[in-house]
Protein backbone atom coordinates (compact mmCIF):
# COMPACT_ATOMS: atom_id res chain seq x y z
CA UNK A 1 0.00 0.00 0.00
CA UNK A 2 2.85 2.36 0.87
CA UNK A 3 4.34 2.02 -2.59
CA UNK A 4 1.01 2.68 -4.35
CA UNK A 5 0.45 5.64 -2.08
CA UNK A 6 3.83 7.07 -2.92
CA UNK A 7 3.31 6.49 -6.65
CA UNK A 8 -0.13 8.16 -6.58
CA UNK A 9 1.20 11.11 -4.62
CA UNK A 10 4.22 11.50 -6.88
CA UNK A 11 2.05 11.33 -10.01
CA UNK A 12 -0.19 13.98 -8.48
CA UNK A 13 2.71 16.28 -7.67
CA UNK A 14 4.14 15.90 -11.19
CA UNK A 15 0.80 16.57 -12.91
CA UNK A 16 0.17 19.55 -10.65
CA UNK A 17 3.63 21.00 -11.26
CA UNK A 18 3.15 20.57 -15.01
CA UNK A 19 -0.10 22.54 -14.78
CA UNK A 20 1.49 25.27 -12.66
CA UNK A 21 4.46 25.48 -15.02
CA UNK A 22 2.25 25.88 -18.09
CA UNK A 23 0.05 28.40 -16.28
CA UNK A 24 3.05 30.47 -15.21
CA UNK A 25 4.80 30.41 -18.57
CA UNK A 26 1.76 31.02 -20.76
CA UNK A 27 -0.01 33.79 -18.89
CA UNK A 28 1.01 37.38 -18.29
CA UNK A 29 1.93 38.44 -14.79
CA UNK A 30 -1.25 40.50 -14.65
CA UNK A 31 -3.42 37.50 -15.57
CA UNK A 32 -1.57 35.31 -13.06
CA UNK A 33 -2.30 37.85 -10.35
CA UNK A 34 -5.98 37.85 -11.28
CA UNK A 35 -6.05 34.03 -11.21
CA UNK A 36 -4.42 34.04 -7.76
CA UNK A 37 -6.90 36.62 -6.50
CA UNK A 38 -9.83 34.56 -7.83
CA UNK A 39 -8.51 31.39 -6.20
CA UNK A 40 -8.06 33.06 -2.83
CA UNK A 41 -11.43 34.77 -3.17
CA UNK A 42 -13.16 31.48 -3.98
CA UNK A 43 -11.83 29.91 -0.78
CA UNK A 44 -12.48 33.05 1.26
CA UNK A 45 -16.10 33.29 0.08
CA UNK A 46 -16.67 29.59 0.65
CA UNK A 47 -14.97 29.31 4.03
CA UNK A 48 -15.77 32.79 5.29
CA UNK A 49 -19.30 33.45 4.06
CA UNK A 50 -21.06 30.37 2.69
CA UNK A 51 -19.99 27.83 5.32
CA UNK A 52 -20.67 30.10 8.34
CA UNK A 53 -24.09 30.89 6.84
CA UNK A 54 -24.84 27.15 6.65
CA UNK A 55 -23.72 26.76 10.28
CA UNK A 56 -26.01 29.60 11.38
CA UNK A 57 -28.99 28.08 9.55
CA UNK A 58 -28.21 24.71 11.12
CA UNK A 59 -28.07 26.32 14.54
CA UNK A 60 -31.40 28.12 14.05
CA UNK A 61 -33.02 24.85 12.97
CA UNK A 62 -32.34 23.33 16.37
CA UNK A 63 -35.43 25.18 17.57
CA UNK A 64 -37.55 22.96 15.28
CA UNK A 65 -38.69 19.59 16.74
CA UNK A 66 -36.50 16.76 15.44
CA UNK A 67 -39.11 14.99 13.29
CA UNK A 68 -40.11 18.17 11.47
CA UNK A 69 -36.48 19.34 11.36
CA UNK A 70 -35.53 16.25 9.38
CA UNK A 71 -37.84 17.29 6.55
CA UNK A 72 -36.84 20.95 6.73
CA UNK A 73 -33.19 19.90 6.45
CA UNK A 74 -33.89 17.64 3.47
CA UNK A 75 -35.75 20.41 1.65
CA UNK A 76 -33.08 22.98 2.49
CA UNK A 77 -30.17 20.79 1.33
CA UNK A 78 -31.77 19.96 -2.02
CA UNK A 79 -33.14 23.49 -2.45
CA UNK A 80 -29.80 25.16 -1.69
CA UNK A 81 -27.90 22.92 -4.10
CA UNK A 82 -30.35 23.66 -6.92
CA UNK A 83 -30.49 27.38 -6.11
CA UNK A 84 -26.73 27.87 -6.17
CA UNK A 85 -26.56 26.49 -9.72
CA UNK A 86 -29.57 28.58 -10.79
CA UNK A 87 -28.28 31.92 -9.44
CA UNK A 88 -25.81 32.69 -12.26
CA UNK A 89 -28.58 31.90 -14.78
CA UNK A 90 -30.90 34.35 -13.04
CA UNK A 91 -28.18 36.97 -12.99
CA UNK A 92 -27.41 36.72 -16.73
CA UNK A 93 -30.85 35.93 -18.17
CA UNK A 94 -31.73 38.03 -21.22
CA UNK A 95 -28.11 39.12 -21.72
CA UNK A 96 -27.53 37.37 -25.05
CA UNK A 97 -28.64 37.90 -28.69
CA UNK A 98 -31.83 36.00 -29.48
CA UNK A 99 -30.37 33.71 -32.14
CA UNK A 100 -27.98 32.19 -29.62
CA UNK A 101 -31.02 30.75 -27.75
CA UNK A 102 -28.89 31.27 -24.64
CA UNK A 103 -30.46 32.36 -21.32
CA UNK A 104 -33.71 33.28 -23.05
CA UNK A 105 -35.96 32.07 -20.21
CA UNK A 106 -37.19 33.54 -16.98
CA UNK A 107 -35.14 31.39 -14.65
CA UNK A 108 -36.56 32.98 -11.51
CA UNK A 109 -39.99 31.54 -12.40
CA UNK A 110 -38.45 28.16 -13.08
CA UNK A 111 -36.44 28.13 -9.87
CA UNK A 112 -39.55 29.13 -7.94
CA UNK A 113 -41.48 26.22 -9.47
CA UNK A 114 -38.72 23.78 -8.53
CA UNK A 115 -38.50 25.09 -4.97
CA UNK A 116 -42.27 25.04 -4.48
CA UNK A 117 -42.47 21.45 -5.75
CA UNK A 118 -39.64 20.54 -3.41
CA UNK A 119 -41.35 22.20 -0.43
CA UNK A 120 -44.63 20.42 -1.20
CA UNK A 121 -42.85 17.07 -1.44
CA UNK A 122 -41.12 17.77 1.88
CA UNK A 123 -44.39 18.77 3.52
CA UNK A 124 -46.12 15.67 2.17
CA UNK A 125 -43.30 13.47 3.46
CA UNK A 126 -43.58 15.03 6.89
CA UNK A 127 -47.37 14.70 6.91
CA UNK A 128 -47.21 11.02 5.95
CA UNK A 129 -44.63 10.30 8.62
CA UNK A 130 -46.57 12.24 11.25
CA UNK A 131 -49.81 10.42 10.36
CA UNK A 132 -48.11 7.04 10.56
CA UNK A 133 -46.55 7.69 13.97
CA UNK A 134 -49.89 8.69 15.53
CA UNK A 135 -51.25 5.24 14.69
CA UNK A 136 -50.42 2.44 17.16
CA UNK A 137 -47.49 0.27 16.15
CA UNK A 138 -43.69 0.33 16.06
CA UNK A 139 -42.51 3.91 15.98
CA UNK A 140 -39.54 5.49 14.24
CA UNK A 141 -36.47 5.07 16.44
CA UNK A 142 -35.57 8.74 16.42
CA UNK A 143 -38.91 10.44 16.85
CA UNK A 144 -38.71 13.24 19.42
CA UNK A 145 -41.31 11.74 21.76
CA UNK A 146 -39.33 8.51 21.87
CA UNK A 147 -38.11 8.07 25.44
CA UNK A 148 -36.37 4.75 24.80
CA UNK A 149 -33.10 6.42 23.89
CA UNK A 150 -30.17 4.52 25.43
Amino acid at each position, binding site marked *: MARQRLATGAAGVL*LGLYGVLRLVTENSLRDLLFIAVWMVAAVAIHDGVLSPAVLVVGRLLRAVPARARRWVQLVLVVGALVTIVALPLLHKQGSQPESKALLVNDYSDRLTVLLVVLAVVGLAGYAVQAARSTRPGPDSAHSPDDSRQP
Partner: protein
Amino acid sequence: MRPADLIQKPPWWPRFTSPLRSTAVTARLGRVLGIAFGICFVTGLLSHYQYQPWGWLPEPASPVWLYRVTQGTHVITGIACIPLILVKLWSVYPNLFRWPPVSSMRNGAERLSVFVLVSSSLLQVVTGFINILGWYPWPWSFVRVHHYLAYVVIGSVLLHIAVKLPDIKYGLGVKVADGDVLSEVSWSDNPHAHSNAGPVPPPPTPAISRRALLAATGVGVGVVVATTVGQTLTPLRPLNLLAPRDTGKGPQGLPVNRTALAAGVVESARSAGWSLEVVGPRPYRLSLAEVEELATSEASLPITCVEGWSLGAHWRGIPLLDVVRRAGGGHGSRVHFLSLQTRGAFGSSDIDGPQLSHALLATHLNGERLNIDHGYPLRLIAPNRAGVLNTKWLMKIVVR
Protein backbone atom coordinates in the same frame (compact mmCIF):
# COMPACT_ATOMS: atom_id res chain seq x y z
CA MET B 1 7.19 18.55 22.61
CA ARG B 2 6.01 20.21 19.44
CA PRO B 3 6.59 23.96 19.54
CA ALA B 4 2.95 24.55 18.66
CA ASP B 5 1.85 22.80 21.88
CA LEU B 6 3.20 25.77 23.77
CA ILE B 7 0.35 27.86 22.41
CA GLN B 8 -2.94 27.14 24.15
CA LYS B 9 -6.06 26.65 22.06
CA PRO B 10 -8.09 29.82 22.64
CA PRO B 11 -11.38 29.30 24.47
CA TRP B 12 -13.36 30.88 21.63
CA TRP B 13 -11.99 28.41 19.07
CA PRO B 14 -14.91 26.85 17.12
CA ARG B 15 -16.17 23.41 18.12
CA PHE B 16 -18.01 21.12 15.73
CA THR B 17 -20.40 18.61 17.22
CA SER B 18 -22.79 17.73 14.39
CA PRO B 19 -23.05 13.93 14.21
CA LEU B 20 -23.74 14.25 10.48
CA ARG B 21 -20.12 14.94 9.66
CA SER B 22 -18.06 11.80 9.47
CA THR B 23 -15.14 10.39 7.53
CA ALA B 24 -17.69 7.79 6.41
CA VAL B 25 -19.78 10.56 4.78
CA THR B 26 -16.77 12.44 3.40
CA ALA B 27 -15.21 9.35 1.83
CA ARG B 28 -18.45 8.53 0.03
CA LEU B 29 -18.84 12.05 -1.29
CA GLY B 30 -15.15 12.13 -2.22
CA ARG B 31 -15.40 8.90 -4.15
CA VAL B 32 -18.18 10.30 -6.36
CA LEU B 33 -16.47 13.67 -6.73
CA GLY B 34 -13.14 12.03 -7.60
CA ILE B 35 -14.78 9.96 -10.33
CA ALA B 36 -16.57 13.06 -11.64
CA PHE B 37 -13.29 15.03 -11.73
CA GLY B 38 -11.65 12.14 -13.57
CA ILE B 39 -14.43 12.14 -16.18
CA CYS B 40 -14.13 15.92 -16.60
CA PHE B 41 -10.35 15.68 -16.99
CA VAL B 42 -10.41 12.99 -19.66
CA THR B 43 -13.32 14.44 -21.65
CA GLY B 44 -11.72 17.87 -21.34
CA LEU B 45 -8.46 16.63 -22.86
CA LEU B 46 -10.47 15.00 -25.67
CA SER B 47 -12.08 18.36 -26.30
CA HIS B 48 -8.71 20.12 -26.53
CA TYR B 49 -7.67 17.44 -29.01
CA GLN B 50 -10.55 18.56 -31.24
CA TYR B 51 -8.84 21.92 -31.56
CA GLN B 52 -5.23 20.76 -31.78
CA PRO B 53 -5.03 17.18 -33.13
CA TRP B 54 -1.66 15.63 -33.86
CA GLY B 55 -0.89 15.51 -37.58
CA TRP B 56 -0.54 11.71 -37.65
CA LEU B 57 -3.75 11.07 -35.69
CA PRO B 58 -6.60 13.16 -37.14
CA GLU B 59 -10.01 13.21 -35.49
CA PRO B 60 -12.23 10.34 -36.62
CA ALA B 61 -15.40 11.07 -38.59
CA SER B 62 -17.36 8.24 -37.06
CA PRO B 63 -19.36 7.98 -34.93
CA VAL B 64 -20.62 11.41 -35.97
CA TRP B 65 -21.90 12.03 -32.42
CA LEU B 66 -18.68 11.17 -30.58
CA TYR B 67 -17.81 14.73 -29.57
CA ARG B 68 -21.46 15.29 -28.75
CA VAL B 69 -21.22 12.56 -26.14
CA THR B 70 -17.79 13.43 -24.73
CA GLN B 71 -18.37 17.17 -24.50
CA GLY B 72 -21.95 16.80 -23.27
CA THR B 73 -20.59 14.49 -20.58
CA HIS B 74 -17.83 16.97 -19.75
CA VAL B 75 -20.20 19.86 -19.19
CA ILE B 76 -22.96 17.96 -17.40
CA THR B 77 -20.43 16.27 -15.10
CA GLY B 78 -18.82 19.63 -14.42
CA ILE B 79 -22.20 21.12 -13.51
CA ALA B 80 -22.89 18.14 -11.22
CA CYS B 81 -19.56 18.83 -9.49
CA ILE B 82 -20.81 22.19 -8.20
CA PRO B 83 -23.36 20.80 -5.69
CA LEU B 84 -21.10 17.81 -5.00
CA ILE B 85 -18.06 19.87 -4.12
CA LEU B 86 -20.12 22.12 -1.84
CA VAL B 87 -21.41 19.19 0.21
CA LYS B 88 -17.95 17.59 0.21
CA LEU B 89 -16.43 20.82 1.57
CA TRP B 90 -19.23 21.15 4.14
CA SER B 91 -18.37 17.68 5.39
CA VAL B 92 -14.72 18.58 6.07
CA TYR B 93 -15.18 22.19 7.17
CA PRO B 94 -14.09 21.38 10.78
CA ASN B 95 -10.65 20.39 9.44
CA LEU B 96 -10.09 24.06 8.72
CA PHE B 97 -10.07 24.62 12.49
CA ARG B 98 -7.50 22.04 13.52
CA TRP B 99 -5.41 23.20 16.46
CA PRO B 100 -2.59 24.13 16.19
CA PRO B 101 -3.15 25.52 12.68
CA VAL B 102 0.19 24.06 11.61
CA SER B 103 1.77 21.33 13.73
CA SER B 104 4.77 20.36 11.62
CA MET B 105 6.44 20.93 8.27
CA ARG B 106 4.65 17.90 6.89
CA ASN B 107 1.31 19.11 8.23
CA GLY B 108 1.93 22.57 6.78
CA ALA B 109 2.69 21.10 3.36
CA GLU B 110 -0.46 18.99 3.57
CA ARG B 111 -2.62 21.99 4.46
CA LEU B 112 -1.06 23.96 1.63
CA SER B 113 -1.84 21.14 -0.80
CA VAL B 114 -5.46 21.13 0.42
CA PHE B 115 -5.62 24.87 -0.23
CA VAL B 116 -4.35 24.30 -3.77
CA LEU B 117 -6.90 21.49 -4.24
CA VAL B 118 -9.87 23.47 -2.93
CA SER B 119 -9.01 26.78 -4.60
CA SER B 120 -8.18 25.28 -8.00
CA SER B 121 -11.27 23.02 -7.94
CA LEU B 122 -13.60 25.86 -6.99
CA LEU B 123 -12.10 28.13 -9.63
CA GLN B 124 -12.35 25.37 -12.24
CA VAL B 125 -16.02 24.47 -11.69
CA VAL B 126 -17.18 28.06 -11.14
CA THR B 127 -15.44 29.56 -14.20
CA GLY B 128 -16.40 26.51 -16.27
CA PHE B 129 -20.06 27.06 -15.46
CA ILE B 130 -19.96 30.84 -15.91
CA ASN B 131 -18.22 30.37 -19.26
CA ILE B 132 -21.11 28.35 -20.70
CA LEU B 133 -23.36 31.33 -19.93
CA GLY B 134 -21.30 33.42 -22.34
CA TRP B 135 -20.09 35.44 -19.37
CA TYR B 136 -16.41 36.24 -18.94
CA PRO B 137 -15.92 38.42 -15.86
CA TRP B 138 -12.15 37.74 -15.83
CA PRO B 139 -9.31 39.11 -17.95
CA TRP B 140 -7.44 35.86 -18.69
CA SER B 141 -7.91 33.44 -21.60
CA PHE B 142 -10.54 30.98 -20.42
CA VAL B 143 -9.48 28.02 -22.56
CA ARG B 144 -5.79 28.26 -21.69
CA VAL B 145 -6.38 28.60 -17.95
CA HIS B 146 -9.16 25.98 -17.85
CA HIS B 147 -6.82 23.57 -19.67
CA TYR B 148 -3.73 23.94 -17.48
CA LEU B 149 -5.63 24.44 -14.24
CA ALA B 150 -7.16 21.00 -14.93
CA TYR B 151 -3.71 19.47 -14.41
CA VAL B 152 -3.38 21.32 -11.11
CA VAL B 153 -6.83 20.07 -10.04
CA ILE B 154 -6.29 16.45 -11.03
CA GLY B 155 -2.74 16.46 -9.65
CA SER B 156 -3.87 17.77 -6.28
CA VAL B 157 -6.75 15.25 -6.26
CA LEU B 158 -4.23 12.40 -6.71
CA LEU B 159 -1.98 13.83 -4.00
CA HIS B 160 -5.00 14.23 -1.73
CA ILE B 161 -6.02 10.61 -2.28
CA ALA B 162 -2.48 9.47 -1.46
CA VAL B 163 -2.30 11.58 1.70
CA LYS B 164 -5.79 10.62 2.90
CA LEU B 165 -5.67 6.95 1.97
CA PRO B 166 -5.97 5.67 5.59
CA ASP B 167 -8.99 7.96 6.13
CA ILE B 168 -10.53 6.88 2.82
CA LYS B 169 -10.05 3.21 3.70
CA TYR B 170 -11.64 3.72 7.10
CA GLY B 171 -14.44 5.87 5.69
CA LEU B 172 -15.41 3.47 2.95
CA GLY B 173 -14.94 0.42 5.16
CA VAL B 174 -17.33 1.50 7.90
CA LYS B 175 -21.11 1.75 7.63
CA VAL B 176 -22.16 5.32 6.99
CA ALA B 177 -24.12 5.54 10.27
CA ASP B 178 -21.27 4.01 12.30
CA GLY B 179 -18.33 6.22 11.33
CA ASP B 180 -16.60 8.52 13.81
CA VAL B 181 -17.86 12.08 14.02
CA LEU B 182 -15.56 14.38 12.08
CA SER B 183 -14.74 17.35 14.29
CA GLU B 184 -11.99 19.95 14.50
CA VAL B 185 -9.95 17.50 16.62
CA SER B 186 -7.81 15.04 14.68
CA TRP B 187 -8.05 11.30 15.30
CA SER B 188 -4.72 11.20 17.08
CA ASP B 189 -5.77 13.88 19.59
CA ASN B 190 -9.32 12.65 20.06
CA PRO B 191 -9.79 10.06 22.85
CA HIS B 192 -13.20 9.12 21.40
CA ALA B 193 -11.88 8.29 17.92
CA HIS B 194 -12.00 4.68 16.79
CA SER B 195 -8.22 4.68 16.51
CA ASN B 196 -7.92 5.34 20.28
CA ALA B 197 -11.15 3.96 21.72
CA GLY B 198 -11.79 1.01 19.39
CA PRO B 199 -15.12 0.67 17.63
CA VAL B 200 -17.43 3.37 18.94
CA PRO B 201 -21.24 3.19 19.00
CA PRO B 202 -22.87 5.17 16.19
CA PRO B 203 -23.68 8.70 17.30
CA PRO B 204 -27.44 9.40 17.41
CA THR B 205 -28.67 11.68 14.63
CA PRO B 206 -31.93 13.04 16.04
CA ALA B 207 -33.12 14.79 12.87
CA ILE B 208 -31.70 14.11 9.39
CA SER B 209 -29.53 10.98 9.27
CA ARG B 210 -26.22 10.69 7.44
CA ARG B 211 -27.82 8.37 4.93
CA ALA B 212 -30.63 10.90 4.35
CA LEU B 213 -28.03 13.65 3.93
CA LEU B 214 -26.27 11.65 1.22
CA ALA B 215 -29.65 10.94 -0.37
CA ALA B 216 -30.54 14.65 -0.31
CA THR B 217 -27.20 15.43 -1.96
CA GLY B 218 -28.00 12.82 -4.58
CA VAL B 219 -31.42 14.33 -5.16
CA GLY B 220 -29.93 17.85 -5.42
CA VAL B 221 -27.34 16.70 -7.95
CA GLY B 222 -30.03 14.67 -9.73
CA VAL B 223 -32.37 17.67 -10.04
CA VAL B 224 -29.54 19.84 -11.37
CA VAL B 225 -28.53 17.21 -13.93
CA ALA B 226 -32.10 16.36 -14.97
CA THR B 227 -32.99 20.02 -15.52
CA THR B 228 -29.88 20.83 -17.60
CA VAL B 229 -28.95 17.65 -19.50
CA GLY B 230 -31.70 18.19 -22.10
CA GLN B 231 -29.47 20.69 -23.91
CA THR B 232 -27.37 17.67 -24.93
CA LEU B 233 -29.79 14.77 -24.60
CA THR B 234 -32.68 15.87 -26.82
CA PRO B 235 -35.34 13.45 -25.42
CA LEU B 236 -34.95 15.11 -22.00
CA ARG B 237 -35.48 18.62 -23.40
CA PRO B 238 -38.93 18.99 -21.78
CA LEU B 239 -37.23 18.89 -18.35
CA ASN B 240 -34.79 21.65 -19.30
CA LEU B 241 -35.78 24.12 -16.57
CA LEU B 242 -32.23 25.22 -15.73
CA ALA B 243 -30.36 24.59 -18.99
CA PRO B 244 -28.64 27.71 -20.34
CA ARG B 245 -29.43 26.74 -23.97
CA ASP B 246 -32.81 26.09 -25.53
CA THR B 247 -31.59 23.89 -28.34
CA GLY B 248 -34.91 23.93 -30.24
CA LYS B 249 -34.87 27.75 -30.46
CA GLY B 250 -32.72 29.97 -32.61
CA PRO B 251 -32.88 30.46 -36.39
CA GLN B 252 -34.07 27.32 -38.25
CA GLY B 253 -34.55 25.55 -34.92
CA LEU B 254 -30.85 25.57 -34.03
CA PRO B 255 -28.95 27.96 -31.75
CA VAL B 256 -25.84 29.74 -32.95
CA ASN B 257 -22.81 30.78 -30.96
CA ARG B 258 -21.58 33.72 -33.00
CA THR B 259 -24.12 35.85 -34.82
CA ALA B 260 -23.48 37.49 -38.19
CA LEU B 261 -23.59 40.83 -36.40
CA ALA B 262 -20.95 39.80 -33.87
CA ALA B 263 -18.75 38.43 -36.66
CA GLY B 264 -19.09 41.64 -38.70
CA VAL B 265 -20.37 39.85 -41.82
CA VAL B 266 -23.92 41.23 -42.15
CA GLU B 267 -23.13 43.02 -45.42
CA SER B 268 -20.29 40.95 -46.87
CA ALA B 269 -22.20 37.67 -46.52
CA ARG B 270 -25.23 39.06 -48.40
CA SER B 271 -23.18 40.64 -51.16
CA ALA B 272 -24.37 39.59 -54.65
CA GLY B 273 -20.76 39.52 -55.81
CA TRP B 274 -19.83 36.77 -53.32
CA SER B 275 -17.86 33.85 -54.66
CA LEU B 276 -15.84 31.04 -53.12
CA GLU B 277 -12.16 31.15 -53.93
CA VAL B 278 -10.55 27.70 -54.05
CA VAL B 279 -6.77 27.74 -53.88
CA GLY B 280 -4.76 24.64 -54.79
CA PRO B 281 -2.78 23.05 -57.63
CA ARG B 282 -5.71 23.98 -59.93
CA PRO B 283 -7.27 27.11 -58.41
CA TYR B 284 -10.77 28.25 -59.35
CA ARG B 285 -13.78 30.23 -58.18
CA LEU B 286 -17.37 29.19 -57.58
CA SER B 287 -20.07 31.82 -57.93
CA LEU B 288 -23.14 31.88 -55.70
CA ALA B 289 -25.24 30.35 -58.53
CA GLU B 290 -22.69 27.57 -59.14
CA VAL B 291 -22.50 26.74 -55.42
CA GLU B 292 -26.29 26.46 -55.20
CA GLU B 293 -26.44 24.29 -58.31
CA LEU B 294 -23.81 21.86 -56.99
CA ALA B 295 -25.40 21.56 -53.55
CA THR B 296 -27.31 18.31 -53.91
CA SER B 297 -25.79 16.04 -51.26
CA GLU B 298 -27.53 15.60 -47.93
CA ALA B 299 -26.35 14.60 -44.47
CA SER B 300 -27.66 14.46 -40.91
CA LEU B 301 -24.94 15.83 -38.66
CA PRO B 302 -25.11 17.36 -35.19
CA ILE B 303 -23.88 20.79 -34.24
CA THR B 304 -21.88 20.28 -31.08
CA CYS B 305 -20.75 23.23 -29.05
CA VAL B 306 -17.78 23.15 -26.71
CA GLU B 307 -20.18 24.72 -24.21
CA GLY B 308 -21.92 21.35 -23.96
CA TRP B 309 -25.12 21.85 -25.93
CA SER B 310 -25.67 19.95 -29.15
CA LEU B 311 -28.46 19.14 -31.57
CA GLY B 312 -28.85 16.99 -34.64
CA ALA B 313 -29.64 18.82 -37.89
CA HIS B 314 -30.25 18.08 -41.54
CA TRP B 315 -27.86 19.63 -44.06
CA ARG B 316 -27.63 19.96 -47.82
CA GLY B 317 -24.51 21.01 -49.69
CA ILE B 318 -21.51 20.10 -51.79
CA PRO B 319 -19.26 17.21 -50.70
CA LEU B 320 -16.00 18.85 -49.67
CA LEU B 321 -14.04 16.08 -51.36
CA ASP B 322 -15.55 17.02 -54.78
CA VAL B 323 -14.36 20.61 -54.35
CA VAL B 324 -10.93 19.44 -53.18
CA ARG B 325 -10.51 17.01 -56.11
CA ARG B 326 -11.43 19.68 -58.64
CA ALA B 327 -8.65 21.82 -57.15
CA GLY B 328 -6.16 18.99 -57.61
CA GLY B 329 -6.28 17.53 -54.07
CA GLY B 330 -7.73 14.33 -52.59
CA HIS B 331 -8.30 12.26 -49.45
CA GLY B 332 -4.79 13.01 -48.19
CA SER B 333 -5.08 16.78 -48.51
CA ARG B 334 -5.20 19.23 -45.68
CA VAL B 335 -7.74 21.98 -46.25
CA HIS B 336 -7.69 25.42 -44.67
CA PHE B 337 -10.95 27.41 -44.45
CA LEU B 338 -11.20 31.16 -44.24
CA SER B 339 -14.32 33.04 -43.21
CA LEU B 340 -15.57 36.48 -44.13
CA GLN B 341 -15.56 37.02 -40.38
CA THR B 342 -13.78 40.19 -39.31
CA ARG B 343 -14.28 40.00 -35.55
CA GLY B 344 -13.76 37.34 -32.88
CA ALA B 345 -11.95 34.01 -32.76
CA PHE B 346 -12.33 31.01 -35.07
CA GLY B 347 -12.38 32.87 -38.37
CA SER B 348 -10.49 29.94 -39.86
CA SER B 349 -10.06 26.20 -39.40
CA ASP B 350 -8.30 23.18 -40.87
CA ILE B 351 -9.59 19.76 -41.81
CA ASP B 352 -7.90 16.57 -42.88
CA GLY B 353 -8.24 12.80 -42.61
CA PRO B 354 -11.62 11.09 -42.23
CA GLN B 355 -13.48 14.34 -41.48
CA LEU B 356 -12.41 15.79 -44.84
CA SER B 357 -13.91 12.83 -46.70
CA HIS B 358 -17.27 13.19 -44.93
CA ALA B 359 -17.63 16.97 -44.75
CA LEU B 360 -20.15 19.11 -46.62
CA LEU B 361 -19.94 22.71 -47.76
CA ALA B 362 -23.49 23.39 -46.65
CA THR B 363 -26.00 25.71 -48.27
CA HIS B 364 -29.17 24.41 -46.60
CA LEU B 365 -30.15 23.66 -43.01
CA ASN B 366 -33.29 21.74 -42.07
CA GLY B 367 -34.75 22.18 -45.56
CA GLU B 368 -34.17 25.94 -45.90
CA ARG B 369 -31.44 28.11 -47.32
CA LEU B 370 -28.92 28.82 -44.51
CA ASN B 371 -29.84 31.66 -42.20
CA ILE B 372 -27.18 34.35 -42.14
CA ASP B 373 -26.44 33.54 -38.48
CA HIS B 374 -25.78 29.94 -39.51
CA GLY B 375 -23.21 30.97 -42.10
CA TYR B 376 -25.01 32.07 -45.31
CA PRO B 377 -24.01 31.77 -48.11
CA LEU B 378 -21.81 28.74 -47.39
CA ARG B 379 -20.41 26.97 -44.35
CA LEU B 380 -18.49 23.87 -43.41
CA ILE B 381 -20.21 21.02 -41.57
CA ALA B 382 -18.31 17.86 -40.68
CA PRO B 383 -19.02 14.85 -38.47
CA ASN B 384 -17.66 14.58 -34.90
CA ARG B 385 -16.36 18.12 -35.04
CA ALA B 386 -16.53 20.98 -32.54
CA GLY B 387 -19.10 23.59 -33.60
CA VAL B 388 -16.74 26.56 -33.94
CA LEU B 389 -14.46 24.54 -36.24
CA ASN B 390 -17.31 24.27 -38.75
CA THR B 391 -16.32 27.59 -40.25
CA LYS B 392 -19.22 29.83 -41.31
CA TRP B 393 -19.50 32.52 -44.01
CA LEU B 394 -16.83 30.82 -46.15
CA MET B 395 -14.75 33.08 -48.35
CA LYS B 396 -11.77 30.99 -49.34
CA ILE B 397 -10.52 27.45 -49.02
CA VAL B 398 -6.92 26.43 -49.45
CA VAL B 399 -6.12 22.85 -50.54
CA ARG B 400 -2.65 21.66 -49.60
